[in-house]
């Protein structure tokens, strides 16, 4: 966010006020202060430990690796299980105020985070006490001790979701429904796992083995976060490699610059319209992005030739689906996309290449990519003609539906376009992945 809307500032101020109210009973409390100090220091330490960062080249695309997340939640939740609500809320403050924040405005983000966590932890601790969690930690009776802990985790998650959704709606102008949708479900599972670790920590803390044993709980959690950050780094590098493949094609075949990404985008729109699940949509997008990768095998001279091609030259160019398939056949995760790369020039009436497949013989993904490919070819400017407007291109696609294209795919594209319009990525520098809406960056980044 560049400039923060006034309403968002008011909202943050309200939550800060709420957090201060939570802290009011502190001076009258009789709590073991060394526990509060130790937990707060621990949490601040967790926040400051750097996790491996993404490589420079990958920073522009994809999601940023979530930083400093996760490993600290067990500390906070253990605090909620061990301490009175106000003291538990205090544990969250130093760490949140010292945390590394990448985006501006830094201090506003830090304050927001501290206030949000304090309120959520206070509520969780309150619920835990109300359900008799205090005695369940001192003299643990499992599985009964799981009930107050579970309720506390649910409360924590719920409060965080409500607060997060509010700031998203106000500061980033995400529609309220969209802001809340999925936020809770996505964060519940990781928070629940961290809650279990927190409970174990609290129980061990109060046991004869003391804080030493409790600290051991954090080690696997930290390793888990560390590996997860590594995973993000590697994933970003992988995306950059796929982009390099596409750029290699662009070097050879200059005038199609950006074509690959746009075909990927159009393929994805069709796939969503057909109601495919997320994983297949993702694979289909790769199919669109990589559909012309076989052009790497075609001599540059032919690709750049102005004027009509001889039949022999045409035959050479028509080898590119097979070259492309040959190149990507070793990439396991592409799955169905590999057949789409091989068959994206087949036609429904059997007059396409390389195999002249008819109708349903053509893989579904190939039929999608064929429509997306033709659509983008018509709506972008080429050296020999100007771009056509979207309605004219759709009309042309509908005219050829049945003979060349699958009518179902053409209709799906038309529906998707009428709903969302066509906003192709302008440059080829855009990431292979559209940046996913980074919600809180803390909870969503978990592998569950």
């Amino acid at each position: 966010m560049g400039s923060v809307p006034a309403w968002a500032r008011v909202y943050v101020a309200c939550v800060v006020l709420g957090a201060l109210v939570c802290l009011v009973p502190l001076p009258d409390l009789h709590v073991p202060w060394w526990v509060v100090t130790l937990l707060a220091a621990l949490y601040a330490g967790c926040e400051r430990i750097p996790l491996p960062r993404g490589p420079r080249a990958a920073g522009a695309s994809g999601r940023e690796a979530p930083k400093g997340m996760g490993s600290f939640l067990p500390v906070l939740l253990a605090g909620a299980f061990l301490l009175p609500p106000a003291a538990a809320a205090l544990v969250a403050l130093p760490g949140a105020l010292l945390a590394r924040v990448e985006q501006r405005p830094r201090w506003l983000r830090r304050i927001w985070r501290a206030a949000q966590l304090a309120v959520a932890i206070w509520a969780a601790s309150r619920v835990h006490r109300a359900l008799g969690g205090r005695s369940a930690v001192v003299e643990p009776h499992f599985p009964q001790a799981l009930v107050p802990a579970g309720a506390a985790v649910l409360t924590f998650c719920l409060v965080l979701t409500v607060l997060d959704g509010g700031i998203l709606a106000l500061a980033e102008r995400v529609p309220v429904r969209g802001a809340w949708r999925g936020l809770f479900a996505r964060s519940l599972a990781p928070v629940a796992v961290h809650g279990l670790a927190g409970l174990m920590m609290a129980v061990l803390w109060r046991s004869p083995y003391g804080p030493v044993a409790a600290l051991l709980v954090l080690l696997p959690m930290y390793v888990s976060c560390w590996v997860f950050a590594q995973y993000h780094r590697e994933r970003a590098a992988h995306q950059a490699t796929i982009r390099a493949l596409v750029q290699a094609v662009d070097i050879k075949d200059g005038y199609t610059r950006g074509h690959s990404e746009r075909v990927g985008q159009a393929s994805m729109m069709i796939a969503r319209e057909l109601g495919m699940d997320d994983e297949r949509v993702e694979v289909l997008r790769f199919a669109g992005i990589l559909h012309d990768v076989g052009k790497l095998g075609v001599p540059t001279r032919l690709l750049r030739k102005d004027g009509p091609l001889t039949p022999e030259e045409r035959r050479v160019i028509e080898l590119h689906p097979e070259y492309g398939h040959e190149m990507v056949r070793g990439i396991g995760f592409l799955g169905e996309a590999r057949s789409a790369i091989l068959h994206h020039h087949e036609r429904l009436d059997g007059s396409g290449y390389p195999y002249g497949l008819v109708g349903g013989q053509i893989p579904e993904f190939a039929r999608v990519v064929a429509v997306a490919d033709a659509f983008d070819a018509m709506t972008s400017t080429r050296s020999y003609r100007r771009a056509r407007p979207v309605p004219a291109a759709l009309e042309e696609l509908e005219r050829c539906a049945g003979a060349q294209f699958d009518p179902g795919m053409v209709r799906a594209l038309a529906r998707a376009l009428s709903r969302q319009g066509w906003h192709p990525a302008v440059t080829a520098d855009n990431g292979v992945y559209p940046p996913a809406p980074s919600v809180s960056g803390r909870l969503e980044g978990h592998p569950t």
Partner: protein
Amino acid sequence: MSTAAPRRGFPTRSARFPSVTGAPTSLALTLVRALALFLGALSLAVTLWTGLEERGTALAFGLLIALGELTRWSGAEERETAPLGAAGALSYALLGAQAGQPTHHGAAQVVAVVTAAALLGCVPHVAGGRGPTLDHLTRRVLTVGFAAVCFQPLYNQGRFHGWSGPAYALLLVALLVLTALCDAVLAAAMAHSRTRWPFGPLLRDELRSMLGIGSAVCATGAVMSLAVAVVGLWALPVFSLPLLLTQLSFRRYAGVRVTYRQTIASLARATEIAGYTPAGHARRVAVLSSAVGRELGLSEPDLTVLEYAALMHDIGQLSLVDPVPAGATAVLPAEEQRRIALLGGAVVRQTGVDAEVAVVVERQADPYREQPVTARIVRAVNAYEELAREAGPGGTLTALEKLRLATARDYQPEVVESLARVLARGGLTLPQAG
């Protein structure tokens, strides 16, 4: 993102782990396996003779270990592929009390339960033919045996009764660290006798990997055993979940690494598809370079850099208008070689791999004294591959001779000799053209 293994084409395993054929199982490996077998059989026999103490506890831990083994994944590279099984086994070995009551099981019972559960959990893996099961079991039995023999007899004699809680927790941690060290030595020794790679670097890599999942396993083992002592068997499911999360993270990480490697290999094939280099060249250079890197004792991160650089060393040729004849860059004038190398480095920098990889690709044509060691290996192996191919059958010696003649400036003598040793050892199954 699914990471299904490719049906054909590239092997899923990395070039760093080539299948070694023809090497007879060494005596040391046989001895270690026999020792594990003997230990497992003896413990089972003793336990059958004396009967199980605390059956419920034994059953619960056995279930946990079997479950952990069932969820083992068959990544070729990960050190610990069944962290849950390992943590469960270690915590049973170090279990002293349950819900406040002292336990009475001995070391033999620990080894027997772990052996039985691990065998049970391995059945689907053996049936599916996945993963190196025998060595995995050997390590598990010996490691757990070590931990149990160190702890259980002393505990059952009451030596730790006077210890305070925190001291007892620290004792467990110390024992686990000791166990992990033994496990690393054992693993390195087994890998050494299996592959005949130098022992030192293998041990170093094992120790380095202990910081990752190894520490998580040890901490979980200690926590589980302490938590069971406090709250009873409910601690097992409660704390298994966080470790499962760790395991899931590792799995996804391993998955994306496999995918990434496949994509890099595909990018490397671009030059072959475009007709600039002969089919399979990049792959052969990668396999040989990795073998030489191993032989020279490079560390794991360096080996990854080496592998990627070897796969992509020819990528600069994509920017050429006319293909170099047969893709053979080693016979080009030095200036031209360097130009192609710089072009390649520019492409590699776009791929988001480690910047070191780009450096290796860029400097592959420099005289060896100015190169990093990885680039020296790529240069020598690439030249060898091209020369040997040119010379036809039996060209190995001719090509090596030519490399030796150029060791004054172009190729490092140590690298060439290491290459000769790798080639003489044979047994590396190089994928043929295709």
